[in-house]
């Protein structure tokens, strides 16, 4: 028997997160990394020419030339029909895709999904910033879903991830175009097994909130009947905290001096 290889810490976290959320009734959903602007922005209530669009630095992808019939199709007559594609800046477009799909199948809420996956930001990289990284999105839609349910769900998730600690959660006001109200979620780990660097300290973990009625509407869900919450968290950052990793760039380093510690 050869010696076992090693799982990437992000894959391990996704496996763990899926297990915790599966038990709470969440389906693992996916979507394309190359997205159209509608799903990445407009459907999520991020209007064109609004500063909210600047909150995320976006990689724009040039139209696909190889698939065109010839140079004439690139003329201005066609260009306004072309869909601008972007590398998704968050996992939130899958909220829209999932709800659209369910509505098309005639399935009304309740919905519960998580979306772990890769996302992209067009920015300079350093110890805490990467151009490509992982997020986990959560979406719950149903009747009477509240901010209190968001708190309860996140507490259960963090308690599952940080098993040796007791976990506290707090909300602070924030703004995201796709949630209303929006909150920033901080977490605090308490207990003797918590590394000193983290113990009793509030750490910013993610953005979250109640799904904006426009987002539900854009996906074909009736916002008068249903409400929901959504959250989006950086998995790389969670891995950094969980294992005390010193540099986010290790994640894509493909260096076994890193990976083989997991």
């Amino acid at each position: 028997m050869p010696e076992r290889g090693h799982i990437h810490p992000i894959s391990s976290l996704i496996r763990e997160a899926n297990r915790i959320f599966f038990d709470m009734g969440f389906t693992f959903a996916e979507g394309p990394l190359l997205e159209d602007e509608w799903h990445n922005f407009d459907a999520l209530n991020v209007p064109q020419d609004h500063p909210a669009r600047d909150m995320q630095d976006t990689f724009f992808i040039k139209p696909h030339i190889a698939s065109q019939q010839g140079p004439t199709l690139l003329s201005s007559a066609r260009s306004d029909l072309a869909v601008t594609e972007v590398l998704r800046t968050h996992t939130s477009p899958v909220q829209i895709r999932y709800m659209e799909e369910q509505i098309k199948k005639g399935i009304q809420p309740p919905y519960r999904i998580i979306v772990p996956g890769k996302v992209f930001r067009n920015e300079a990289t350093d110890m805490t910033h990467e151009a490509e990284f992982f997020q986990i999105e959560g979406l719950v839609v149903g009747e009477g879903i509240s901010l209190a349910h968001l708190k309860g769900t996140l507490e259960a998730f963090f308690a599952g991830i940080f098993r040796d600690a007791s976990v506290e959660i707090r909300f602070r006001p924030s703004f995201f175009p796709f949630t209303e109200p929006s909150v920033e979620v901080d977490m605090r780990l308490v207990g003797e097994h918590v590394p000193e660097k983290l113990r009793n300290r509030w750490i910013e973990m993610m953005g979250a909130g109640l799904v904006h009625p426009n987002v539900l509407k854009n996906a074909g869900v009736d916002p008068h009947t249903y409400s929901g919450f959504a959250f989006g968290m950086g998995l790389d950052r969670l891995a950094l905290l969980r294992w005390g990793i010193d540099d986010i760039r290790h994640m894509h380093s493909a260096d076994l001096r890193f990976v083989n510690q997991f």
Partner: protein
Amino acid sequence: MKISRAWLQAFFDTPLPDADTLADALTFHVFEIDGIEQHGDDHILDVKVTANRGHDCLSYRGIAKEISAILNIPLKNHPLGDKLNLSPQTDAVSVSIDDPRCHRYIAGYIRDVKVAPSPQWLVSYLEKMGQKSINNVVDATNFVMFNIGAPLHAFDAGKLKTKNEKYQIDIRPAREGEKLLALDGKEYTLNPSILVISNDSTAIGVAGVKGGMPASITEDTKDIIIEAASFDGAAVRKAAQHMKLRTDASARFEQGMSPEWPAYAMRDMVLLIQQIAGGEIVGFTDAYPVKQEIKPVSVTLDHINKTLGMSITTDEVSDVFTRLGLLFVQEPVISQTYHHGDKSDLSPAPVFTVTPPFERLDLTIPEELIEEVGRHLGYDKVPSTPLPPSTALPEINHSFAAAERIREDLIAQGYSEVFTSVFAEKGERVVANKVDGVRPYLRTTLIDGLTEALKKNIPNKDLLGLKEIKLFEIGTVWPDAKEIQMVGTITEKGKASEKPLSEHTQNVGHPMSYINLPTSAAIRYAPYSRYPYIVRDIAFWTPSTLHHEANVGSVGSYISDVFKKESGELLQRVALFDTFTKADKTSLAFRLIFQSFEKTLTDEEVNLIMQKVSTVLSAKGFEIR
């Protein structure tokens, strides 16, 4: 936005609490604080005003209003409370708005001002904002903008052309290729998507972004025309992007601004100019084609409580709205019987109808009112409630289930998982705006990344204690105008190969749940040294007293201990890699890896350690081969 505590104090009679308390109040009820800086005996808070509140909070007035509501301290006077009276009107300036993207334009004409250095208080206020003082007139426009949030501009009337002794100001789209030398000394080439302020067919400023040199205020300026205006946010944003020039003014306009603002800004500006530069007010011209429409928003108490998951009372809601200065009507009016009688008297549910103040463009739907209630009462009061039990089993994601199974199979075969970049030197799809400019394509294969990763890891084989480097990646590629998930593997001895994940998916069938697979057992990550390592092999015959086969393990661990003791932290790894017995003697061979966290080790340093190890072992009867 930078907020000086001392400047903020000017809005209150009651002394404000210290900077930390202010920071906490803002953090937990409205905006995050990016930092607090000491500035002499003042403190400057860096307040991260969110994109939905640029309308009203990119100013001292806006922050003061929030502080007043949060801490329940009254504002000294309400800057927007007084009835406005911009008089006299004048026909010495005429304004014509030729584009609907200008929502309002007020020109204020003042003669005989004295342009001079600003008074010390103004210089020091602007300094707190990181702004250099220019002269009293220009400084006044900036002061008023920071103070109440509406940008202003001042033109030198003497440099403008008149017609029949009247100044004509037009707000119009720029002509294609029209040029403007702006106040920053740069010449910008404009186009019709950009709005300009124009006099006698010449652009004298870009609407909402920057004024122009042709009408700049200098020491010789005598008569000024002050602009207080409101422009379409998207138009200003596009212009600023085209010019690659984001100014304090454009940052405020681009979030959208009420057309009521300019009148207040003009009032404050004229008062300040009279105070610090004198002059005689000739009058005002106000072009305001479409008055702002304010729509009331209603929310029920039930909706508030269902959304926040709380049990808030009508009194608490009215208190929040009152503190925030939101005009509201509460229906039905709760009768006296409520205080004595049954709770069922309360139905139908109370409804709050709020008429937002003109500057609160963010209040348009019930959920936005709910946010006001939630954040003001404090989100710490939101309880934690588990989700109700799920009515249906979650679906199994077959592609993830297949990926998980492959991941486990490969790991069991000794492969380690890596992620390599999706960006490549070549491919079909190309990024149009990559910040760093390198590897602009999206990969079409995992092989190139894996090959590179293999090459990078081979030199570390000994350090890792591996016989062979074996890697795999499950990742996205973009070949043939498609996006697919691929599984790729590479080993030193074999060939790299890849296969779409979808080809593995059918093997999974239709499971009802995921297989329970192990997660990483790692507790803490240990940083690795970035310096090169040195390898030494050592082999020796064990003393005959110890040579018994069954003892090899314990002899090995005894020797490892010796190595560790003699070489300290520099020994990264020690591995027994060979044993054999000849006649009655057993040979053991070890591989030792030395590496420092502080420097590149030299052969001499390692030789010294090896000598010490040999000496100790020889003394114990081991015979070095």
